């Protein structure tokens, strides 16, 4: 049990807490998150872009009172950018300042002191308690990077050859997200609880938009969610996610729109569709999109 974090009695209680902070999970996601907290296992979230994987980690940090540490993955990311790095300029300065006066063994020892170590996100998360470590879009990193994570995820520890092993007093809650652009190694997945985040059903999506854009006119969220639901079945290059539904509603609200019609939809479609081909296609069939 994470001592510093708030405890939840059941998946439903956790779901209510997330709901209270503006994130509406379905039963599956609430149970997966609840188990991740109880079992101190990383949560591995896969799903289409924009279904709320990153937002879940942010909301979890809010409701547990933990610090959110985010590690955005990219190709070529390595230990010195994700775990720790030595502060070389300061080490050199220290060495020059000490000059030839000190005992060489002592001096060498003092060079690899904790104060010369720069904590990158993962080490930060281990040293800060309580914390939520978000490893975002792990599929963008290359497979060599996954090996770095194994020790962290299994033992909540980072081993630094010159310094020793730094262990988290209180393991962070780890949330790993993937858009599934490549298959993540099974050794990593096996240590995690796996959850596929699906698009929410219509009623939940409307509720999410209400929660996120409470100022929007009455009925607008329903109209936008209905239009987005139709867009998702329209065979587009990039079907809009919940994030796009929220953006679109917000854009319409900022323009003072209270009812979605062809003219306002056309002007704001860019909030929901991100490919030119999709825009062109949908603009042609705009009446059908709004009708019904």
């Amino acid at each position, binding site marked *: 049990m994470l001592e510093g974090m708030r405890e939840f009695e*059941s*998946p439903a209680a956790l779901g209510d807490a997330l709901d209270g902070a503006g994130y509406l999970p379905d*039963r*599956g996601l609430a*149970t*997966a998150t*609840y*188990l991740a907290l*109880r*079992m101190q*296992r990383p949560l591995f979230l*896969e799903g289409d872009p924009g279904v709320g994987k990153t937002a879940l980690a942010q909301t979890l940090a809010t409701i547990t009172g933990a610090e959110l540490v985010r590690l955005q993955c*990219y*190709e*070529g990311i*390595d230990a*010195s950018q994700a775990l720790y*790095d*030595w502060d*070389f*300029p300061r*080490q*050199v300065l220290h*060495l*020059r300042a000490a000059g*030839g006066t000190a005992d060489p063994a002592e001096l060498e020892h003092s*060079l690899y002191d904790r104060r010369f170590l720069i904590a990158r996100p993962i080490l930060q998360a281990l040293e800060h308690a309580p914390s939520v470590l978000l490893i975002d879009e792990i*599929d963008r990193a*290359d*497979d*060599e990077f996954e090996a770095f994570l194994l020790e962290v995820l299994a033992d909540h520890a980072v081993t630094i050859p010159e310094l020793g092993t730094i262990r988290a007093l209180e393991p962070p809650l780890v949330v790993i997200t993937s*858009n*599934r*652009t*490549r*298959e993540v190694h*099974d050794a990593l*997945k*096996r240590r995690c*609880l*796996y*959850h*596929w985040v699906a698009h929410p059903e219509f009623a939940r999506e409307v509720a999410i938009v209400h929660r996120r854009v409470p100022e929007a006119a009455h009925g607008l969220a329903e109209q936008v969610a209905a239009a987005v639901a139709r867009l998702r079945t329209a*065979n587009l*290059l*990039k079907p809009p996610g919940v994030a796009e539904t929220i953006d679109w509603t917000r854009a319409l609200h900022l323009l003072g729109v209270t009812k979605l019609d062809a003219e306002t939809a056309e002007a704001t479609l860019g909030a929901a569709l991100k490919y030119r081909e999709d825009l062109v296609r949908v603009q042609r069939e705009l009446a059908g999109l709004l009708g019904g």
Partner: protein
Amino acid sequence: MDERLDELPDPVVTLTGFARALRANGVAADPTRLATAVDALRHVDPLDAEQVYWAGRVTLCAEPDDLPRYDAVFDAWFRGRLPPPPDASGRPATTLRMRPLAADAEADGPDDADETDDPLRTAASAAEVLRHRDLAALTDAERDEVNALVALLAPRVARRRTRRTRPGGRDAVDVARTVRRLLRSGGEPAELLRRAPRVKPRRLVLLLDVSGSMGPYADVLLRFAHAAVRVAPVSTEVFTLGTRLTRITRALRLRDPDQALAAAGAAIPDWSGGTRLGESLQAFLDQWGQRGTARRAVVVLASDGWERGDAALLGEQMARLARLAHAVVWVNPHRGKEGFAPVTTGMRAALPHVDDLVAGHTLAALHELAEVIARA
């Protein structure tokens, strides 16, 4: 303690059997995951079917393909319903369901086609026919061919520069290593150490048309695919196109060619069926390609270009593929024949977006393909 729990069978025994049933259905429910599931069950209400369902799902599944299988086995195991029939149509897995082709008796090939003798003239079949092929027994000659292909491909994997670096080169200074060296020499300026980008195998994606008209060539192309996967297992992906999209990479990763090709044969549900290149290619791009599989990759599409569907859709999807991929190579088995002209509707639509058009009907022709892939 809740006395209702006394009536329940031992959860460990139940879950072990459940995990075994999942494994038999292709879900990655290994013993490590089983142990996690047993642990997870202690944290939820074991009498609440929904909580048990989710506790099992998050611990025993590893990818979206597992989810429908998990649902089916969960129903059979815990809700006492009948298990799905054990034939391949019960494993939606890597297969995308598309609407069946409209019944259409009209043949696709040219009117003067001699349908019986020349396999090239076997028209793209109209109806969606689902059939599997038994590729289990390779002859010695075929096994030699696989080995020859491995030898052919091994030194020729295309490479790309990555963002990772290695010591060496002459351009960028490797600050970390230089300073570490400098610290060792007591802070005296030392030699500057350099770093250079690492190279990695470039991703290779093979899309194989397994429709009826490709029948005579599909075997050799599958063997080629197996060889490619063996040479670079991590960076090679293989899909089959027909009336559906099927991912067979996992099957082909088995080292033994007999086993690999048998598994691939079992995984392909639309063997020698019709051709809907445009739709299958769109399915590939939607589910895999655009998300990353086709990005920076060399994509090889093996097909004769006889398209049952809308050739305009194929052209559109080829354009999309060309924008994502590093290079697009089209393998047309007819290319090697005398008097070949890319006249099939699919071929015509696709051609503007193809970087290389090569033959691939024989082992010898595959040399050229390997060469093209290596150069890409």
